């Protein structure tokens, strides 16, 4: 299967005054049609910046982004239009993602107009997509304004807007974190159905491994701008290899009374982590840190079937 989107050694460096911040470093990943990839990590780990680079909302400072085999890394804004139609974003906050002065109809017509779809087709397309996100009958919703809708309904509109140009890739950045628990499942199910039925490539960004497990077959874990582990989601959760992944898995709250309440296998907090220098970025919080971790950054290596880990402990481990 060929990749819909591929990142090769992607990096983003921000310069603020004298300081240089490596928001993302050396991220390589690819997602095929019909596949969903999860990117997990804490805030500030670079997951959102990575996604924004994949969508070319941010220009990478290193590496390449390939969409359906074409290099779009440094393509100019005007030339990105065909790509925009094929790579869409589902926003985190549905209360802020829709123009408050546009009706739902106008919101959905906007991409159709911009991507040059003949006006005659608009009504049918809008109707079809409203059906797909289960806002039916469409006529009851299309003339409303965003402030008249609940969070779950708004997120359906956001999803509809992303689907209407017929994309090949959908990126969802924390798609349900702002929604009430009772409606989250509805949105996740719609996203899953859209991917399955339309054969989309999907990328989910979240700090919540439980959510990622529900929607993604494969997951990468990011820490301070780098991928530290990658693998099939179920395996990654059942048998995490990187110490950071282990802490992340242990920290996910579970809705059961009987559970492990032991202290997390991690020390300190994110702000204690070294900002630069050589060595592993996780070493100050790692319960297994050794002298070598100080001296040398571990590379992301193959570690068994479809798995990659960046940890010195994993070297020489049976693969």
């Amino acid at each position, binding site marked *: 299967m060929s990749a819909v989107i591929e990142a090769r050694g992607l990096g983003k460096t921000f310069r603020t005054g004298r300081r240089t911040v490596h928001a993302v470093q050396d991220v390589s990943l690819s997602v095929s049609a019909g596949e969903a990839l999860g990117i997990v990590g804490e805030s500030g780990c670079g997951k959102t910046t990575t996604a924004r680079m994949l969508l070319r909302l941010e220009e990478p400072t290193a590496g390449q982004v390939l969409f359906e085999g074409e290099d779009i890394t440094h393509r100019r804004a005007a030339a990105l239009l065909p790509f*925009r139609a094929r790579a869409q974003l589902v926003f985190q906050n549905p209360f802020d993602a829709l123009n*408050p002065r546009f009706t739902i109809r106008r919101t959905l017509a906007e991409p159709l107009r911009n991507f040059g779809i003949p006006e005659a087709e608009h009504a049918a397309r809008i109707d079809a997509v409203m059906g797909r996100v289960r806002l039916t009958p469409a006529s009851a919703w299309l003339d409303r304004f965003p402030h008249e809708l609940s969070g779950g309904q708004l997120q359906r509109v956001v999803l509809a807007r992303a689907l209407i*140009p017929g994309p090949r890739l959908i990126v969802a950045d924390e798609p349900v974190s702002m929604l009430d628990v009772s409606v989250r499942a509805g949105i996740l199910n719609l996203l899953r159905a859209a991917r399955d039925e339309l054969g989309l490539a999907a990328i989910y960004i979240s700090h919540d491994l439980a959510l990622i497990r529900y929607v993604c077959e494969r997951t990468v874990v990011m820490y301070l701008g780098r991928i530290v582990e990658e693998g099939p989601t179920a395996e990654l959760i059942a048998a995490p290899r990187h110490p950071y992944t282990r802490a992340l898995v242990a920290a996910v709250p579970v809705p059961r009374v009987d559970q492990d309440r032991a202290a997390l296998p991690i020390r300190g907090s994110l702000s204690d982590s070294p900002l630069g220098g050589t060595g592993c970025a996780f070493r100050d919080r790692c319960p297994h840190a050794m002298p070598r971790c100080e001296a040398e950054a571990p590379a992301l290596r193959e570690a068994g079937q479809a798995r990659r880990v960046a940890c010195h402990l994993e070297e020489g481990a049976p693969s």
Partner: protein
Amino acid sequence: MRAARAAWRFLRGEPFAFVGAAIYALIVVTAIFADKLAPHDPREILRVGRRVARYLPISPEHWLGTTSSGRDVLSQLIWGTRSALQVGLTAAIVVVAIGTLMGLLAGYLGGWVDKLITRLADIVLSMPFLPFMLVLAALTQPGTTVVVACVALLLWPNTARVIRSQVLSLRERAWVEAARVTGCSNTRIMFVHILPQVLPLAALYGSVAIGWAILAEASASFLGFGDPNTVSWGVMLQEAYANQALGRGAWNWFTPPGLAIVSMVLAGFMISRGSEKLLFPKLADK
């Protein structure tokens, strides 16, 4: 309809804005019906018998008396609303148009465009208003066009600054990014998505510009750079001054246009003060 109801509810809660809007409304109505309301032709030289009816005091026939050349003050005052509104509205529209455009470009595009516009605005704001207008008037034909041009050239930075900061915060909103993802060009984002959001703010600055323009026109006329053939409050003041109305105690001549100017300028500020609460709720909390 919904907007009208919202505006009414707002005005009821904000006494400042209410008074300001009431003054504007009164002036607009007066201007529209000036020909019906004015008891005399403002330029007509009235006579009592053979003699020119100069310096008549307040009386039932002449509610505000007459001028040195025997013209009815009330009629001049009423007709003056037309030129005041004309100057005020034209200037306000031009100010708002330039200011909004500049603010939009600076705020949305950022980078060198922003730097250029901000620098330009700083230069313009440092120019003194009256001398600038006098020079411009001296170089060209005196008249209302010069006044409007001056107000437009010198007042846009105020609007531009506010619009710019508003746009700076709007462009961080997710729906602006969504517009980009769904294929909008920068031009479309600026004019279709962002512009409608800042128009209320622009209109507010326009209401202040109306007051400024009227003040400017009055100053220009008072200093003799106005169009002597129009009937305006500024020209009235200038005539009163030239004919030493002050020394003669003809307060019924110079007070009404003075008060009219002051109240109209004040109305603009009252509206803006009142609506600040609406537009910048955080400001009002403090």
